């Protein structure tokens, strides 16, 4: 009886998924996968496991496992599942891998697996999974829960997670509050600018273990040693390419933050960065140029029992394994520098006496450009600023020997309109 219901749901939702993918994603920002099929407030997701390959900044590719939406091809990381507070969420897992697998939803309560409370599976005295599994090579399992709390969450494999999560079976789950999709929580002070919402999903890869799995050998935690660190499944400079960049067919999520200067009636609310760490150790992420205001962790607002505000401003977002941090951020020029009315109080050296960064406009001023010396390569478009964010455990912004890659991204500050950015 249950199986029949599930099959009919699957049929409906696969059709829905195919239609959904016809819409091109936004170039930057979070690409939400919303439930297909089901009814309002009861979204249904079909997650299919796949194997595939991703491209890394040193030119290597590595073998991965991953969750995909419906009948989509392999992707890394898994789709960003967006639901609303109070939704009854159904996730149907279709497993094509050679191992049994499952999904756990850290931070969600009363999760059901195939209609019963999701419990560890044991074989004799050995625990084989943290949650009810979908059998290898064709099995399925259905998980349901009520998304009672807004916030940012992970979902990930609960079966041999030390192998399967490392292999890529993870993704982000965003629960929108009742107060609206432009709030992080049911708190007016958590309001943000909707087109300045970004995901920072941090992970790591040991390529030897992935090669072993590809060859049917053991993923050996005793020799585990990450060589790559990624942001939203990519390393810099791929990290700042658009969502869905054609040359990264299996890594759909960029992490460039494109924003306008904060302030005034046109821009009264900050942006929101949703940080998630799916790695094995703390990742200290450092946004330049503006502190973040940490308003929530692990899907819980930083609010005391009496409503006290426990938020904290930080310049280093030190995210522990499995944690999520919700961080409001904004940038404005504290000095309001302007080439005519308020110039920088220093002699600007001749550009020929400086080493010119590839994102630099040639001018200190937002929206201004200067002629660069002949031969200078510039990626600056219209005098916009680029302000870096990166992991500050600096050996982790490398890719097996290629330095200054890995979990690095930028915040692009667009000049006030009208501008020439097109």
């Amino acid at each position: 009886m249950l199986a029949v219901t599930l099959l009919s749901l699957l049929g409906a939702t696969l059709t829905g998924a195919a239609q959904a993918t016809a819409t091109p994603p936004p170039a930057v920002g979070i690409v939400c996968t919303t439930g297909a099929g089901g009814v309002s407030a009861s979204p249904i997701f079909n997650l299919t496991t796949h194997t595939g390959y991703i491209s890394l900044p040193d030119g290597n590719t590595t073998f991965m496992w991953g969750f995909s939406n419906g009948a989509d091809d392999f992707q890394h990381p898994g789709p960003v599942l967006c639901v609303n507070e109070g939704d009854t969420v159904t996730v149907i897992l279709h497993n094509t891998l050679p191992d049994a697998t499952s999904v756990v939803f850290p931070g969600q309560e009363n999760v059901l697996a195939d209609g019963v409370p999701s419990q560890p599976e044991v074989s004799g005295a050995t625990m084989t999974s943290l949650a009810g599994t979908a059998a290898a090579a064709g099995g399925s399992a259905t998980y349901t829960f009520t998304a009672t709390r807004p916030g940012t969450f992970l979902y990930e494999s609960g079966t041999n997670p030390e192998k399967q999560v490392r292999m890529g079976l993870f993704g982000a789950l965003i629960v929108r509050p009742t107060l609206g999709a432009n709030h992080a929580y049911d708190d007016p002070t958590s309001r943000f600018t909707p087109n300045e919402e970004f995901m920072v999903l941090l992970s790591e890869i040991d390529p030897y273990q992935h090669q072993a799995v590809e060859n049917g050998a053991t993923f050996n935690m005793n020799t585990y040693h990450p060589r790559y660190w990624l942001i939203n499944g990519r390393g810099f400079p791929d990290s700042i390419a658009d969502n869905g960049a054609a040359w990264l067919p299996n890594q759909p999520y960029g992490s460039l933050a494109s924003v306008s200067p904060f302030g005034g009636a046109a821009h009264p609310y900050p942006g929101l960065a949703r940080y998630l760490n799916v790695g094995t150790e703390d990742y200290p992420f450092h946004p330049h140029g503006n502190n973040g205001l940490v308003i929530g962790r692990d899907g819980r607002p930083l609010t005391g029992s009496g409503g006290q505000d426990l938020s904290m401003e930080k310049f280093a977002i030190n995210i522990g394994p499995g944690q999520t941090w919700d961080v409001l951020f904004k940038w404005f020029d504290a000095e309001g520098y302007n080439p005519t009315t308020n110039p920088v109080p220093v002699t600007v050296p001749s550009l020929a006496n400086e080493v010119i960064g590839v994102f630099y406009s040639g001018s200190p001023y937002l929206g201004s450009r200067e002629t660069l010396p002949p031969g200078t390569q510039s990626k600056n478009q219209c005098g916009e600023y680029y302000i870096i964010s990166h992991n500050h455990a600096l050996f982790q912004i490398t890719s097996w020997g290629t330095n200054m890659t890995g979990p690095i991204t930028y915040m692009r500050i667009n000049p006030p309109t009208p501008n020439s950015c097109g």
Partner: protein
Amino acid sequence: MSENVNPQPPRRRSAFATRGFTRRRFLGLAGGAVAVAGGVSWAGKVLVPEPVAYAASGDPDLYLAGTDGWIHLPETPAIPPYHPDVLAPAPFTTYIFGFRNVTGMTALQKVGQKNKAQHSAPLFWVKQFDPAHPVDFKVQLTNLGLQGRPDLFDAHTLHWHGFRNVIPFFDGEPTGSVAVPSGRDFTYVYRPRDPGTYMYHCHVEDVEHVHMGMTGLVFVRPLQDGNTSLYRSGTYLYNDGDGSTGFDREFSMFLSEVWAEAHWADAHIQLPEWSDYHADFSLLNGRVYPDTIAPNGSVDPFHPVRDPNGDLIPPTGRPDLQYQPLSSLVTCNAGDRVALRFANLGFREQAMTLSGIRMRVLGRDATPMRGRDGTDTSYETETLDIGPGESYDVIFEAPDHQGPGFDTYLLYNRNYTRSNNLAPGSFGGQATEVRVYAANTVQQQQYPNDWGI
């Protein structure tokens, strides 16, 4: 300095130089060493003298130089072949990149500091910007080049880590702005509006330049300073309005690390594999215990004491610590409120434990421990976990004096592999002592980390 006119692509990336603007090529540019693409029309870099001298902006408040140099870490046990480095001139062991304070030097003295970098970088501090009496704080940076690596032409920058709402021009991140090539200068202008503890470092190829030692601590004093009605000393961590962050004595505790292989590699024209990173030595203010309790050299950057050539004068009896001038010994009188300013630019999380005394955490990342509605979020702890790039401000109250002499409390990294100099059974690394004296024994500090005895 002739290396600066070399139009070759960045070092270490020559394999990709001839492919045009490939993705790999882009990586090299993003690395920030040189932003000149291999365009066929490029005829070489032209270095133009400044038409207007820096006199146009007035003298800088601080003048820093980026260069290379040598420091001393315990020779035994050795880490062959990396430590001690066979190229190190006596009495030193370890090759570094670093900063020096060249404020007020003659041109000759200044260029004489090439290959005389220090670690940690010069400690400095600034009074919070006061809109009623606006004064810019200007730090000029020059690049003296790397004597140990004449094949390199690395630029340098000054990145004030944590400075809020800065424009890229003054942020020192070289890809989004500019960097300072060898023999050139750049002046960074700051209006520090937020008191607290920060750090600074070179951001050019920062995986390497940060680890090699171009790192130090900077803090901002609050406008509330001088108000003795809230706390007797009139010195505070923040504009607290209630004296809760007032202190009698202050000590900077800058945390960094040395992976011997990486330092050796830079001296020997080799490359480390950064994913093999580990800290052989964990440093407190550029030294390891027990050197951390050796005397200060010249610490106050605004009143530097130097030899006639402009070089650093070693702490008394410690010529090996000539380029590690900052002591970590904490001296205080019973009952003193003592502020410790921690900043971590190592690559690993540290767990600094003050054994036997509770610390109250009053600031983090240059932000007072207050919610937006003023809720007090300060807390007490004995062990402070400090991630890379984080800063913490704590205050402890010195306990009653037991005597005779001074009472010793240990401040050390509870991750014991970081409070050890690799020698079995010996304390070392990120550790120092807190010495509590009888009341009115220790004199008022003339500068941070001043012993006053």
